[in-house]
């Protein structure tokens, strides 16, 4: 059993991992801001929503001030991954490192900064961060884990078991790519449409009654993504269109992070998500005019406030 975990990057997802895992392991949080680390040390990390408890965690802004963990979970946004990975370079040589970022390419970014064994994961859980030391657990869907570099499915299973024992949902897979690509296509479609329209992921995304209904565009974007996956040779896990319909039927109006980012005038993950999909499409000569259009529009929207 894994006994010590460092969660690097404590937004909503990182906070959910850190608080739950602290119930079954020693957890430390590597924060970016000193006041964030101080709040966690002084007040603990509170979870509300689907769970309700406060966890004790160690926290610091310098990896040297944290105990050596067996597992590092990199839970920051994709846009913060490069600087975070470079801060970890030279630290925790005995640890296994797991990425949780949306899109494609997180493992390569991290792998360039150290020889750690790497695990890939995608998470479907969601939360809302209310304060540095308070996160609300919203969607209790699973995190899927697979081997990436110097790891086996047994390593993935050990992490999944740890996560399950902490009260979250997780599952290990031999090959994560079917899940990763399903989520990539889902995110490239839903997040970009939400960021451009201002709509949370709600019923509009599945509507097809009129010629201009948003569901047609969503379906066309999913179809482009499927064609890329097929050309890459990935058999998709869940069907992204069905994931979309199901999510809109839950009645919960989820705000994709890309929408929150453009509303807060922050950089988005469009490069790692839509950008990655468009680059894979180009490499395999698959036309993706609609994803290309959305990629250009979201990138330009970011430019309008930077």
């Amino acid at each position: 059993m894994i006994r010590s975990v460092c969660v690097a990057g404590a937004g909503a997802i990182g906070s959910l991992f850190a608080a739950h895992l602290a119930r079954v392991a020693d957890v430390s949080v590597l924060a970016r801001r000193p006041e964030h680390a101080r709040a966690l040390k002084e007040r603990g990390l509170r979870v509300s929503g689907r769970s309700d408890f406060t966890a004790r965690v160690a926290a610091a802004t310098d990896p040297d001030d944290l105990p050596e963990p067996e597992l590092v979970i990199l839970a920051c946004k994709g846009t913060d991954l490069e600087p975070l990975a470079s801060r970890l370079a030279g630290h925790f040589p005995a640890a296994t490192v797991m990425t949780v970022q949306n899109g494609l390419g997180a493992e390569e970014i991290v792998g360039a900064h150290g020889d750690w064994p790497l695990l890939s994961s995608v998470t479907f859980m969601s939360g809302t961060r209310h304060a540095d030391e308070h996160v609300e657990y919203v969607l209790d869907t699973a995190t899927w884990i697979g081997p990436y570099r110097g790891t086996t499915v047994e390593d993935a299973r050990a992490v999944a078991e740890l996560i399950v024992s902490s009260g979250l949902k997780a599952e290990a897979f031999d090959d994560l790519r079917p899940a990763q690509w399903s989520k990539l296509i889902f995110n490239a479609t839903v997040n970009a449409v939400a960021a451009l329209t201002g709509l949370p992921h709600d019923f509009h995304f599945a509507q097809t009654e009129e010629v201009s209904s948003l569901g047609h565009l969503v379906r066309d974007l999913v179809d482009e993504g499927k064609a890329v996956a097929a050309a890459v040779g990935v058999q998709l896990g869940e069907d992204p269109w069905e994931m979309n319909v199901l999510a809109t039927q839950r009645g919960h109006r989820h705000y994709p992070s890309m929408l929150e980012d453009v509303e807060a005038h922050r950089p988005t993950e469009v490069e790692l998500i839509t950008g990655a999909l468009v680059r894979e499409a180009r490499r395999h000569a698959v036309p993706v005019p609609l994803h290309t259009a959305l990629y250009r529009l979201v990138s330009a929207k970011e430019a309008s406030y930077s």
Partner: protein
Amino acid sequence: MKVCIVGCGAVGSLFAANLARLDDVEVWAYDASQAHVDAINAHGLRLSGAGEVVARLRATTDAGELPACDFGIVATKAMHTEAAIKATAHAFTEGCVATVQNGLGNEETLAGHVTRVIRGTTFPAGKIVEPGHVQWDVRGDTTLGPFEPQPAPAAEIERLAEACTRGGMPTEAVADARGPQWRKVVFNSATNPIGALTGLTHGRVCERPDLRLLVSGLVDEGKAVAAAQGIELDPDPEELIDHAAKPEVAYNHKASMLQDVEARRRTEIDYLNGGIVRFGDEHGVPTPLNRAIWALVKGVEQSWQQ
């Protein structure tokens, strides 16, 4: 000659005030804004900026007051065409009705209520500063021609064009007015929604090479739909787009659709990109990018109803 301006907003006011300067033209204005109508009746209609005019004319919110007119000039936003012509059609039983509105489909709507229709395209622009007072921002030409399925007689089109020109609104009567109309529609459809979705001014849209390619993709679809109807666009809308991007022309111009989106006003997207999609479907020309942009801007409008 009696002329009724139907929809006396900024563009309608430019026609109304300039035509009212002529001794041989009696101008009526029909508008939904009681404050604007009252101000015009009390103090006259004032233009300032590109031209200084104070004109006396009769304005009303009650279509029942309108006399039988030789001409109507419809200048409402495209989504109000149906209601406006339905209310005023009785005044044009013996007359001809011209549209100087944006987008596609206005002529068809007018033809549902009046017999003789004039297809028009106009470039002058302004904004209402206060009731009874319009800021005239841009001078420009107007083109009038027959709406082919239910045309006004050529001599009548000439008569209206001559009066507009003499009043200070340079207007040309042509045998086929579809080219100028489609050139403006293609220009607007390729640029306005891109500004609206990204928040960028016209010049900033054009200086991003990737975004400029998206604009060209939209132009190409519009040109293909025009070509399928035998409509020639000369000069090419691409030239207008590059011309407008110059610092001394409209680099810093926020497209009217961007202004609409910022003010959360309903846009004319249904009559621009939506019009191109509808005519494309009729003529078997695929318009996937215009369709996507149409759905995105409709999504923006839907996000305000949350």
